């Protein structure tokens, strides 16, 4: 880490600390949302960057948000226990679907569509259990004012601090996986599973590991989001729409770089908000129309995402953003993949 990067990090932290003091409440609210969603998109990118494109993160988000909220409302159980239970439930769900998927080699399109169905199952179950969850009308947590026990803070400053910490933790985990030995294994798997297995990589373990971490973090993000907005609706925290939103924002920002998903969150959320303010309520849908066009253009012209494209501009000789497998591996890899 060079001096200039350290300086940049210090400036960033100073800005983050100064934000709640300077920003008016509306923008603070926006900042909290951007940070929480950045965390969720980063969690998705943990899988997405290795080519495991999941449309099922809406399911994990929904489970993570609903479990602590329901436990709180019906049993008065503190979110300090409820949130870990929600995360555990999401991890269990991810393992339940992920394990056979990986074992049976459900990849690519098929993986995307199986996980898409998973989002739909969670969404429709939440709607069907309308006696408990309020169905599509949504559901409000019992408010008790300022309380650490209930993890409810009417004052936005607290949630700002929580979401900053959450976001930084997400980045740290991203970096930990990026720097770890697992990352090279996963890169190898995403290029050629058989070849990776043939050089002694435990394919199942690597895939399950990253899936479980990704699902668990997504559920945690959903829980914090639920505690913050204090209103849950199946359409906004579960289902295909949310899954697509996660996938698109992460890809638009770029899944191969640390800050890519966060840039995706910043851009998509500020775009949606400013278009909403700009057009008002007279043109419902205008914001998403422009959003949709941008998404298509982004995928056609910048498949590496915005941050990826910028990195390419800055480092033209770096070649493909996605790094190849490490040298000693590739020597054994070539013949085995040619033999297929």
């Amino acid at each position, binding site marked *: 880490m060079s001096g200039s990067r350290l300086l940049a990090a210090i400036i960033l932290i100073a800005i983050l600390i100064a934000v709640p003091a300077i920003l008016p409440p509306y923008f603070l609210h926006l900042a909290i949302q951007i940070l929480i969603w950045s965390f969720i998109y980063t969690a998705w990118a943990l899988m997405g960057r290795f080519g495991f494109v999941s449309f099922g993160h809406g399911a994990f988000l929904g489970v993570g948000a609903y479990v602590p909220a329901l436990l709180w409302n019906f049993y008065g159980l503190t979110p300090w226990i409820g949130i870990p239970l929600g995360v555990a439930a999401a991890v269990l769900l991810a393992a339940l679907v992920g394990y056979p998927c990986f074992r049976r080699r459900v990849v690519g399109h098929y993986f995307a*569509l199986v996980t898409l169905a998973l989002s739909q199952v969670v969404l429709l*179950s939440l709607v069907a259990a309308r006696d408990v969850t309020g169905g599509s009308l949504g559901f409000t947590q019992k408010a008790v004012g300022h309380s650490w026990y209930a993890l409810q803070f009417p004052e936005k400053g607290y949630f700002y601090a929580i979401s900053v910490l959450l976001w930084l933790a997400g980045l740290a985990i991203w970096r930990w996986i990026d720097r770890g030995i697992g990352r090279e294994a996963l890169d190898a798997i995403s290029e050629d599973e058989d070849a990776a297995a043939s050089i002694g990589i435990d394919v199942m373990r690597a895939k399950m590991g990253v899936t479980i971490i990704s699902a668990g973090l997504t559920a945690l993000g959903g829980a914090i989001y639920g505690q913050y907005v204090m209103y849950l609706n199946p359409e906004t925290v579960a289902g295909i729409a949310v899954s697509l939103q996660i996938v*698109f924002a992460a890809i638009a920002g770029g899944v191969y770089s640390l800050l890519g998903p966060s840039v995706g969150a910043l851009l998509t959320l500020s775009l949606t908000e400013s278009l909403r303010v700009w057009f008002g309520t007279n043109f419902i*849908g205008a914001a998403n129309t422009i959003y949709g066009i941008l998404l298509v253009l982004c995928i056609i012209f910048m498949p590496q995402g915005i941050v990826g494209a910028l990195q390419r501009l800055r480092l033209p000789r770096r070649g493909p953003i996605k790094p190849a497998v490490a040298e000693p591996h590739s020597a054994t890899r070539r013949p085995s993949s040619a033999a297929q």
Partner: protein
Amino acid sequence: MDIYLLEAIINGILLGGVLALLALGLNLIFGVIDVVWICYADIVMCGMYAIYFLAQYGVPLPLACVIAIIGIAGLGVLVHLLIIAPVLHSPPLNQLLATGGLLFFLQSFATLLFGTDFRNIGVRLPVLEVATMYLSFARLIAFAVSLIGAVALYLFLKRTYIGTAIRAIAQDREIVGLMGIDDRRIYLVVSAVGGALAGLAACLLALQYDVHPFIGNTFGPVIFMICVLGGLGNMIGGFVASFVISQIIAIGGYYGSTELSYVFAFTFFIVLMLIRPRGLFAP
């Protein structure tokens, strides 16, 4: 047997017909162009709006249907030229995402233009009473027309020169070029036929359902599930899978609620995918 259960089963078969038509269109596009149009159901939604507005302006319904089918076929060609062609050689997931962006666009653009109101073309078809069961005439028509559409597609693929070329390209993409077939032209024809099938489905659905910008979300996931179950690109598999899924939805709806029936269907799909990852009818 319980008469209501029988009614549910028959309605399931009738629903299966329309789903089969949609699955055929999607499978045709996937089998030939090798791209999943995740926005397929939203293209159907465009067709339903076209019929609704044509009917509003006094165009007779059969003519409106013909115009809608031609219009949606044109839309299919446009989708191919504007969105699929530039990403034809990208990784499959980028293609999936590009059509996903189109899904966002179509839904929001429809909301922008028409608002979120539920609109009905206002054609009331009689309900038949057969042995104390109520069967909607609109559904019977939809079932019959879907089957005719499926047979017509079969004849088109089997009996015409261009149909043969389409089947050839689905079998071996590399070789057909050597046989003097222009694959770009075939892709356009396939997109048009896929669009026309979506337009036909729109005509049949407009008779039964109100149109609104998000109606695609009701059918879209189910159609994908059917295509994947039948084996993506496998038209006969998709045809059979439509009736399997529609029965699960119909019978599930009889025992539980509508949402639960879809939960059953999706769970069945996930479980089957894990048992038979390449579809129900894979060798």
